[in-house]
């Protein structure tokens, strides 16, 4: 299935890092023993749901809950008047969301209130009895409508419905324009998509005295704790967040969804545990998925294809609230500079408010659409210059140890090698330009940050803290971290790292994560940060343990008086510890078990604890928005797809895919390949099938997996996942990310393969059979007209 090519990181002899060890959660998950939020039950638990708007934009005249309150079993109904009147969000610059709508509803599905009852059935019955009277207001559903002069204003604070406006310029565009040999403009459109995780949002809250305990399905225990404390004016120490296993996130469980806040509020009122849960359709209504983006790029190149300048304008359909959208808007422009090395760059972006569910982060945050657009644009430039598309990319690929014009320091970066390996592995040279009509091959590049350089809310806290405790008798260790395993496997990877750093058996370590009371600070699973950031903290905690073990062991080990490599008292630096055995480096026969040493330490000093700290330090430039896109390390990747298009029906079948990832040292190859397979599935779905669709009144049309079509196993091609296995100086053991970056090249490479197959650029995603059919038909008709 997958090949590994050892490259640039040859010199490693690790016990656990770099091996496809069995996942820590695998037995729980395959046997069904593992608990997800919906499996949790507490005595006297009540069941609740949000009351949602049935208008896209309207003033609330009256909410009549009297009939619902009379229904036996209904325990509480709350609306805006019953909760703090504080606004929240994820970016402090744009806290614009109320717990419940105070005056107007801003999209079909907006939160009006919450209700809880003794069982689910009663909740659904009661929901139907709540009568909301509206004064319907004119609404806008596209950025174009929102931008009209006479468009209704959705927020007072966003005149012209512009939620975020960005104008960044680096270098000297005008000068570069004079020097350009060839200039081309392309406009491409990416659609609104959703994450497609199978576990809907859910939260259970109950109060223990002044403290509240929330169980949730979320991507960050820390952010949830922070925002709940802020919203309810509590101390963070009085909010405990615990997550059971999480059934996927992909960026859709970073925001506060409303189940969390309302569970806390309703549990306070009722004095009972309250479980708030979404039906599947509500996951779509909650939204926070990929923004629709309309992207225009103008690029000037030399005769050899070297990019001299890029001017870009991106218009984002933001939906009703900001959420992570400010960061999305910046991300849409800022990472292009990492991928390709050019000095002169202008990025303008406008994020519009529309009366639709809010958009936010989705795997590759802000990247996949711009990558799709720019990679398509590059293929046209290559074609116009008569160049091979990969050669054009090789001319412009960024190199290691460089700094981007927008101030990012890029250490390891092997995009050139990724392109070359993908080209050779896919048989590109035998295929490009040589395949029959209807068959095509395309390339796309991408990559991502390995953790964001700054916390989403402003704080001086370290980004990750690790702690390891060894059992009294030295036979077992517990790793503590608030890192969140949402299925990507961070628990496994961090356990491997702890084992490696300590020199202790992987199978004798338990990891304690996803709990603000028990585990130590980490910002959670977003921006592809866990392996590097939580990894550093855990590595350092492991090394702290090992240091203490070697000091203790030096007192216990004796080298032979005669025949040994030397005699006398040992120093700790003469020792090493691997896989549970402490030994003299020069004479490994002289050794003692980790457990014996750890027990002796315990007898003498008490508990053996290791501590680790990670902060990325100050990163980035000083311009407005300079923080977004900063990261200690950047991954890069090249993907190639081969497709077959039915020229009569427009159906695209992806027949082969290749991914070459420059993701630093690979801690667990199996998990990396899993990410790459998943990324192709997600990316192919977004290229060909998926689009969140609404009717003319803003009502969601496809909030289910039947009509929001993601690829099934039967739709998936063979995936050839290749690893460069590079080394990143800013990562523990040289690691970088793979989770999000792997999705960023997919849309572009599949779209380019389709273009190669049919010779027509369908410039708006998704490339549904009908759009391809229409594109072919229009091209045919235009040709006929020309012929006449």
């Amino acid at each position, binding site marked *: 299935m997958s090949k590994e090519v050892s490259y640039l990181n040859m010199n490693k002899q690790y016990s656990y890092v770099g091996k496809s060890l069995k996942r820590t959660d695998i037995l729980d998950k395959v046997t069904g023993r593992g608990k997800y939020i919906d499996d949790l039950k507490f005595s006297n638990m009540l069941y609740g749901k949000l009351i949602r708007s049935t208008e896209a934009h309207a003033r609330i005249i009256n909410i009549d809950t009297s009939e619902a309150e009379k229904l036996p079993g209904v325990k509480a109904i709350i609306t805006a008047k019953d909760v703090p009147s504080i606004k929240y969000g994820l970016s402090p610059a744009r806290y614009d969301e109320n717990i419940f709508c105070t005056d107007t509803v801003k999209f079909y599905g907006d939160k009006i209130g919450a209700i809880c009852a003794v069982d*689910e*059935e009663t909740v*659904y*019955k009661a929901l139907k009895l709540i009568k909301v009277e509206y004064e319907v207001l004119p609404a806008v559903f596209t950025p174009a409508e929102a931008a009209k002069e006479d468009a209704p204003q959705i927020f007072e604070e966003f005149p012209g419905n512009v939620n975020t406006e960005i104008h960044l310029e680096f270098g000297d565009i005008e000068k570069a324009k004079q020097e350009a040999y060839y200039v081309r403009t392309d406009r491409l459109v990416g659609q609104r998509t959703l994450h497609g995780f199978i576990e809907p949002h859910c939260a259970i809250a109950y109060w223990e005295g002044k403290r509240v305990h929330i169980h949730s399905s979320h991507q960050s225990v820390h952010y949830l704790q922070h925002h709940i404390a802020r919203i309810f004016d509590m101390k963070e120490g009085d909010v405990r967040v615990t997550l059971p296993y999480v059934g996927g996130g992909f960026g859709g469980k970073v925001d506060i969804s409303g189940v969390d806040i309302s569970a806390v509020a309703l549990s306070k009122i009722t004095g009972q545990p309250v479980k708030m849960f979404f*039906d599947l359709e509500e996951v779509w209504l909650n939204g926070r998925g990929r923004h629709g983006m309309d992207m225009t790029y103008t690029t000037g190149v030399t005769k050899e294809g070297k990019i001299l300048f890029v001017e870009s304008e991106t218009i984002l359909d933001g939906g009703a609230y900001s959420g992570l959208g400010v960061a999305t808007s910046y991300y849409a422009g800022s990472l292009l500079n990492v991928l390709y090395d050019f000095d002169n760059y202008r990025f303008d972006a406008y994020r519009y408010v529309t009366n639709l569910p809010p958009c936010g982060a989705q795997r590759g945050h802000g990247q996949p659409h711009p990558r799709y657009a720019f990679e398509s644009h590059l293929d046209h430039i290559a074609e116009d210059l008569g160049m091979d598309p990969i050669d054009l990319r090789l001319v412009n690929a960024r190199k290691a140890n460089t700094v981007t014009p927008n101030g990012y320091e890029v250490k390891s970066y092997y995009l050139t090698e990724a392109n070359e390996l993908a080209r050779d592995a896919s048989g590109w040279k035998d295929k490009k330009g040589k395949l029959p009509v209807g068959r095509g091959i395309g390339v796309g590049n991408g990559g991502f940050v390995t953790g964001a350089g700054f916390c989403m809310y402003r704080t001086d806290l370290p980004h990750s803290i690790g702690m390891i405790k060894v059992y009294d008798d030295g036979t077992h260790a517990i790793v503590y971290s608030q890192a969140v395993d949402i299925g990507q496997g961070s628990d496994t990877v961090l356990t491997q790292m702890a084992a490696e750093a300590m020199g202790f058996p992987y199978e004798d370590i338990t990891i304690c994560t996803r709990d603000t009371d028990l585990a130590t600070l980490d910002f959670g699973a977003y921006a592809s940060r866990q392996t590097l950031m939580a990894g550093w903290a855990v590595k350092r905690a492991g090394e702290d343990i090992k240091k203490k073990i070697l000091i203790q062991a030096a007192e216990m080990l004796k080298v032979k008086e005669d025949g040994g490599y030397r005699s006398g008292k040992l120093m700790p630096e003469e020792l090493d510890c691997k896989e549970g055995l402490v030994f003299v480096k020069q004479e490994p026969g002289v050794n003692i078990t980790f457990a014996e040493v750890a027990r002796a330490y315990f007898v003498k000093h008490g508990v053996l604890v290791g501590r680790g700290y990670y902060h990325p330090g100050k990163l980035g430039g000083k311009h407005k928005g300079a923080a977004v896109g900063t990261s200690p390390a950047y991954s890069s990747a090249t993907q190639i797809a081969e497709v077959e298009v039915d020229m*009569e*029906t427009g159906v695209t079948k992806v027949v082969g895919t290749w991914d070459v990832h420059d993701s630093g040292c690979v801690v667990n190859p199996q998990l990396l390949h899993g990410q790459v397979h998943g990324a192709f599935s997600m990316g192919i779905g977004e290229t060909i*099938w998926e689009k969140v*669709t609404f009717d003319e009144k803003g009502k969601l*049309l*496809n909030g289910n*997996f*039947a*009509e929001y*079509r993601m*690829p*099934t196993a*039967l*739709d998936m091609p063979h995936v050839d996942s290749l690893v460069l296995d590079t080394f990143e100086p800013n990562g523990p053991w040289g690691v970088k990310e793979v989770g999000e970056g792997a999705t960023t090249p997919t849309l572009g490479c599949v779209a380019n393969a389709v273009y190669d197959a049919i010779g027509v650029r369908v410039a708006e995603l998704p490339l*549904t*059979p*009908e759009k391809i*059919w*229409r594109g072919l038909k229009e091209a045919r008709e235009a040709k006929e007209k020309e012929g006449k």
Partner: protein
Amino acid sequence: MYLPDFEYFNPDSVEEACQLLLKYGSKAKAIAGGTDVLVKMKKELLAPEVIVGIGQLSQLKKIEYVPGKGVVIGSGVTHNEVQNSKVLQEKYLSVSEAAHQMANNQVRNLGTIGGNISNAVPSADMPPILIALDTTAKIVGAKGERTLPLEDVFAGPNETVLEHDELITEFVIPDGSFTGSTYMKFGLRASGALAVVGVAASVQMEDGVIKDARIVLGAVSPVPVRAKKAEDFLKGKPAGEEIFAEAGVIASGECKPISDIRASAEYRKDMVRVFTKRALNKAANEGHV
């Protein structure tokens, strides 16, 4: 997404089921696999006060060949049972394959063929191929029974000619002279997608000449329809790609599709052309597939 309250009956025979349906009239609904009715109830599109379960009736669970009559398919067999039936795989692999193309494995495992027909969704996968093979439906009611050509069972989207007390009990694919048949489903993904267009074709070939043909179109009209002009055009013509392509154009002119979230009418019409051509080719050259 919660089922409303209802009364449930579990009759021992078709006759008892019909009596219950007669008694409760429009308040009652029969279910077998429940893959359509229960979903509609959860979505509040349907609120029967009484549900009559017929999925357990063994008399509806047969697939057999009766010499002189044809292949008899009980209405209570699931799509997976149709798919895996030795009788059908031998005689009409095309029917077995059509069942396999329906929805996804979970639905095929529960949903019955009788339910798929009675639910009368325009995009249903089983009606086109069965109509193309001149299938008849036996309908049993409280007051007696009748047999209709399957194509006469449909009255409109989600509507059949069945009375409240009537159930389809079996389908018969008569021994006929068709030499080949096939159903081509065009959905927007490999599994778990409704047909945007479904075309079934059957042909009777004799020395390279088309003696008779049926073309049945799904998802492009309120009910599955035969493209009769295209059928007539084919009769007596030599089989060949050009002839089939022309038949596709004619069939395309006979359908009246709608535009919806899945496809436009214009696209559907052209897909009727494409898949009529392909289905005829396949049925003429490969037999019942």
